[in-house]
């Protein structure tokens, strides 16, 4: 094992204030993942870095390992939600107090990880969102996506009871309570917005932190212009269904 701290014993020995994990979901990100992992390790040397590989067909796993990350390899492609949830499940089982999620395409600048972590530790909120629209930070988004975000803001405002500027941001941090909830229940497709509703059902709090986002370093976004309309409809439906949802009964043995 390269980083012995990523096992139960070592995690228990880790100082509670340093006990956080940087989670990087990745699918065919061989071009960017190595750089992202190295950047994260430079910015937060004490952090454990876990790349969750969603059955990539390229060299994502070897690139991530070579850069010094632990890699959780899914046996087959589950999609973003299933991939992130696998990381949350492992992090919860290993006893981490905080998890910061960073995308594997290099859009999220790891220099903001300490900001997210600080707010998560000091504010008492359960989730922090790195917001590219907070205080007018550098914004790289298409017109269609910007319209979609505007729609989501309007819809989410009354549901969440507070405004959310960047509901589609995947640059998020969660504390252990939210980690427990997400390890059990996490939306599968386009999970960012529905995850806010999942937290709201638990009366958990979230806060936004200003970040700057960069253009992706390699690969293509999974959300193309053609898929945008489907994305908006799917997410809105998911939000309303999440509001109406009953907690599932345990499966019959």
């Amino acid at each position, binding site marked *: *094992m*390269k980083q012995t701290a990523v096992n139960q014993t070592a995690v228990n020995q880790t100082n509670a204030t340093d006990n956080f994990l940087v989670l990087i979901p990745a699918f065919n990100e061989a071009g960017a993942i190595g750089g992202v992992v190295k950047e994260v390790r430079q910015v937060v040397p004490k952090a454990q870095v876990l790349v969750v590989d969603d059955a990539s067909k390229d060299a994502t796993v070897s690139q991530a390992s070579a850069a010094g990350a632990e890699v959780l390899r899914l*046996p*087959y492609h*589950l999609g973003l939600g299933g991939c992130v949830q696998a990381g949350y*499940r492992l992090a919860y089982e290993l006893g981490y107090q905080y998890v910061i999620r960073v995308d594997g395409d290099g859009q999220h600048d790891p220099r903001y990880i300490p900001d997210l972590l600080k707010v998560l530790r000091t504010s008492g909120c359960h989730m922090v969102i790195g917001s590219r629209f907070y205080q007018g930070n550098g914004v790289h988004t298409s017109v269609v996506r910007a319209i979609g975000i505007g729609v989501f803001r309007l819809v989410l405002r009354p549901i969440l009871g507070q405004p959310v500027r960047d509901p589609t941001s995947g640059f998020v941090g969660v504390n252990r309570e939210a980690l427990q909830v997400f390890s059990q229940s996490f939306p599968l497709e386009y999970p960012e917005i529905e995850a806010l509703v999942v937290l709201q059902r638990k009366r958990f709090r979230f806060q936004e932190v200003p970040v700057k986002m960069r253009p992706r370093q390699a690969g293509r976004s999974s959300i193309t212009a053609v898929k945008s309309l489907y994305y908006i409809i799917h997410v809105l439906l998911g939000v309303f269904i999440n509001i109406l949802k009953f907690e599932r009964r345990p499966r019959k043995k």
Partner: protein
Amino acid sequence: MERLLDAVTILSLALMITVLFSVRRSHIRVEYSVSWLAASFILLLLSRSRALLNWISNQLGLTYPPFALILLVSCVFVVVIYRLSVVISDLKDANIAMAQRLAIVEFQLHNQNEKQ
């Protein structure tokens, strides 16, 4: 009218036989064959019992009994398809949970092996 009823009879018998053969060859599990067998039995009953079909169309306020037959056929298949959607959703949830568990167990095993 008679042709339509005969066609539905043939369709329901064909469905019944297909499902029974599929169960025999283990192409479909017994618990999922029940929905299809029930659906085909209902179709057979409606297509062969003119009195029942007339009564149902009267209850529904339909002047032309074949409309009732088409409506009921649609309802039966909607129920069967809905039930299958529930089953598929359950299977997908279980499948994702199992894939995640497998990945986590492999990760922990790998780390333990490297540690030793």
